[in-house]
Each structure stands twice: as structure tokens, then as C-alpha cells.
């Protein structure tokens, strides 16, 4: 008699948890990248936010995903990570 076992449909590899970057105490003089995912009216929300961030002393710039329904490409992620101290992503309308 052998004991039956199952073949799991799950991918059971354990991925190491990503560590959050340290949070700055304030945003004055920091570079904030506003990431537009191309969801309807997300850009309008980022426009308003950009005004407030500038008034608070942050430098801002924009980046954009190819389409909202796909993960950001490695190029976009690398490019944003290269110049941003902070990132704000507008997720959905």
C-alpha cells in the first residue's frame, strides 16, 4: 500500500518580500514623479496634486505607463526609480 499524494496547481515558490524604501520626513526639495497609468481622468487628478506638491516645495515630473491594464514595463520602472525620491501613482478613476 502506498499513500497517495497530490500535485499542487499552485506555484509554491516563496518570493522574498520587497522592503519599502525609507520614508523622508518632509518633501521639500524632493523630486516627486507622478505616474499616470492612463486610466480615464487620472491625469486630471495628477495635475491637481502636482500643484499642491509644487506649493509645498517639491520638484515634480511626470511619467506614463503604456496602458493601465498591464504592469509597468521594466524601462518605465527603471527610469522612474532613477530620478525619483518619491512616486505617486494615480490608480483609477
Amino acid at each position, binding site marked *: *500500500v*502506498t*499513500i*497517495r*499524494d*497530490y*500535485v*499542487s*496547481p*499552485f*506555484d509554491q*515558490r516563496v518570493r522574498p518580500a520587497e522592503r519599502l524604501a525609507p520614508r523622508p520626513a518632509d518633501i521639500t526639495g524632493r523630486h516627486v514623479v507622478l505616474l499616470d497609468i492612463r486610466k480615464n481622468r487620472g491625469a486630471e487628478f495628477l495635475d491637481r496634486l502636482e500643484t499642491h506638491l509644487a506649493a509645498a516645495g517639491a520638484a515634480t515630473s511626470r511619467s506614463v505607463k503604456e*496602458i*493601465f*491594464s*498591464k*504592469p509597468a514595463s521594466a524601462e518605465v520602472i527603471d527610469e522612474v526609480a532613477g530620478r525619483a525620491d518619491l512616486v505617486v501613482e494615480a490608480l483609477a478613476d
Partner: protein
Amino acid sequence: MQPSLAPGSAAPALSARGLGAQRPGIAGLTAGGAALLVFVSEECPTSAHALRSLGGLCPSWEQAGLAAAAVFEDPLEVAVRVARRLGWGGRVLSEDPPYATSRDYSLLSVPTFVLVDSGGRVAGTVTGWDHSAVAGLIGRASDLLGTGLAAPPPGGPLRKPGCSSKAAIDPEIAAAMNGPGGLDELEEMFERGWTDGLPVIPPTRERVDAMLGGRAGSRSLGAVPPAMGEATLERVAACAVLAGCRPAYFPVVAAAAEAALDPAFNLHGQAVTTQPAGQLIVVNGPVREQIGLNTGMGALGPGCRANLTIGRALRLLVALTGGAVPGAMDRSTLGHPGKISFCIAEDEETSPWEPLHVERGFRAGQPVVTLIASDAPLSISDHRSRTPEDLGYVLAWAAASAWSTNWWPLDDPSVFVICPEHAGMFRAAGWSKQRLRQFMFDAVHKPAGELRRGETTPFVHAADPATQVPKWQSADEIVLLVAGGEAGRYSAVLGPCTGMGSKIVSREVAL
């Protein structure tokens, strides 16, 4: 009842059963040199501890000549399940009420360990969990076999009393404890989350190997979004087993998985969206007949194992390997029944037109699956049209509310499943597929001013009110298939999944 198992006395015969056809006997168990019987019961925590502690050693003991057998005072299916959960690597036996074997061994409590030598004589017993006494028993077995056996690992309790043997309590109470366990394996699938909400076929190693049919299980078809679990052929096969597929269906399932994982299909967006989107599988070519896919009556409904389980296997792959579990990463507001299973085979023989896969560049004799991100079917009844123009108009306008009443134009495909009687009318009139498609495209348009209620497209929003807006961006967004029963004039339209940039993807069935 007094224990009567003095060392040297004959071990009583076993009336327990195992998974094999023949009842195991003492002679068979001791053929390698000795046997260790471990009497246990599902409800007893000390039994569980004993099985857990010793289970990993059993294979090496068996190789050295000591057969370890857990004798459960439980139904066989319960015994097998408990043994598996606890990592018991030895043999599994089960005895039924009134537990004659336990009585013959004068059992008072479980666990009880009985070592039997090659002559069928009792060489030692331990009652309850006693680490040093069990280690001593294994030492005695080593002496009998003339070889060193791995001792129970240290750690855990040194001593622990057991529970009453069911043979030693009132038979009525024992019978009440002994409920049916036949469905437990199916319930276990739910406990593991290996389900779409319906019962599944447990993916045992034997079933998955049969599904693979000798193909390399480690081969990967790619990562399944959104969790990017790797779709090894073995996992795809596990999903096919869970779904209820026959092994003959597996090449179609694998081809559908390959097509779904093509980045152009954007399964990622479909898997997590609040839209209802399902993944429609269209099967063309000779494989339809070879594996018994239904192209006829009820082609989009219940009744055919091949259609339902192939569609279900892909959905289970997305939900389980891909992690798109409804209510968790699958955020679909309503979903639709096609997200359980969504597989149609085209009736190429009845169709007046070239089949979908030929339209997409394949040869007629090639087996091909085509994936289309699709909304639920909307039935279109028309029993009175007598000209292809009237019928084409009715079919086309049924799609006017696809996605939304005022969302024009759509830039993703609408799939029309044309029933044989409707298709026959176009055949009689000599209409080509392209002619019908263009007619339908031309038929459905409205002035922008009539589309400005509620949500509408940026195009309509910006257009002059008199501008005529078509329902589709181009005639190419109209996909035509033929399927269904020979009687009845009911076709259907399946609206799109939009905003995903999802392309139609085809793959030859090639495994």
C-alpha cells in the same frame, strides 16, 4: 480485558484491510524480517503524534526489512487521508466495527505498538507514547534484523497517554464515532482552495501522470498573471485533472494556456479587472471530432464533457496557478458564467464560410485554438427574417448595447455565434463572410447627439451631434462563428473586454 500479548506469544491474525486487493496478513508483513503494527485512531492526538514522529522513518525501515503498518480504527478513506496529512510513510490498514483485530490484540488504548518477528511471534509491545520505550522497541527490531534501524527523532513529549481503543468502549458509541468518510477527499480540495467553487477531481500523482502522457512535466509554458506562477506542464495537467479532463483533451488545454499567456492577449488585465471578461476558447480543425467536442445543440451550454472541462481547466490555471481568485486578485464586479468555463467548437461542416482558424492564416486540417476576451453571450432570436439583409440587420443591432448602450465605437471584437438555420440563409443567398461583416458594420450607426446620455466615448463627446458614429471601429471587430443545434433560430453575440489592448491569439494544438 487483560493484555495477553506476552513476548513470544503468537501474533493474532489481522482482519484489517488495505488499499490493495488482498487482505494483508502477518506472514506478508513479516516477510522482510519483522513488522511493527501501530494501532491508531483518527480522533486520538497521541496517535497523531506517533504517526508524525515515526512516519518519516518508515521507508528506510521497510528497506531494512521492518514493515511498519498503521492499523486505523477508522474507515479506510479516513485512514489514508490522515496518514497522508501526518506524513506517515508506512503502510496503512483499516479495521471496521466491531474491531476484531484490536480485540484479538487485547487493545485497551491507542496508540499501541506491537513488534512481530519473522516467526509471527510478538517480540515486544508499547502502549501510549513513550519515547524511550518506542526507541527500545526499534532497538529490539534492529537486533531481530541484524541491522541498525533509524531511531525515533528526539524532541516533542517523552511520554503521553493515549485514548481508548474503539474495541474497548461501548459498541454503540464506537459506531456513532465511525461516520462515513467517503467525501472527505473532495472536501479536502475545498480546504486547500483547489476549486472554482465546484467539486473537483483530486489531482493525484497517478492522474496527473496520465494527463501528461509522458510529456516532461517540468517544461514551462510561461508565467501566469497576475501572481506570475509558473505554468509548468505538470501544473497545467493538475488543473486539467481538477477540471475533469480526459488525457486526450490535454493538448488542447495546453495550447489554450499557451495562447492565453501570449502577452498580446493581456491575460493580466483580464484576470484582475472589474469587468466581467472571460477567456473564450474557440477550437477548430479535426481535433474537435477526435476528442468529442460539441459543435451542435447547446454548443455554449451544458452537456459536453470536453467543452466544459477544457474551458474549466484554463480558468483553474488562471485562478490557482495565476492567483486570480475571485474576490481576491480577481476583482470582477459581477463576473459571468463563462468565467467558470468558456469553450466552443466551430461547426465548420455546417458553416457556409471559411472557419475562424483559416481566416487567421492556418490550414483547414490544422488543429487550432483561438482565445478571445469575451463578455457573456446575449441570445438573438429571429424566426421571421426572410432576407439576408433583414437577418444581418437584426444580428448587428443586437450588439448595439454590447459593453454599453452609448459606448460607440467599440475598438475590441464582438463575437457572433451564428446558428445553423441563420447560417443557412446566408449560404442560400450566396453571402460571403466578408459581405455579411461589412453589411453588419454599415447597418449600425447613430448620430453622436443620440449617444450622449451617461457614459460615452471621448470620440462621441467631442463629435458634432450630427456626426454618424458606427458601433465598431471597423468591420474587422466583427468575428463570425457558426455553431449550435440544427433547429431553432437563435444566434448570440458576445461583447468585448475593452480597454485592455487585448488581441485575439491563436495557437496550433501541437503537443
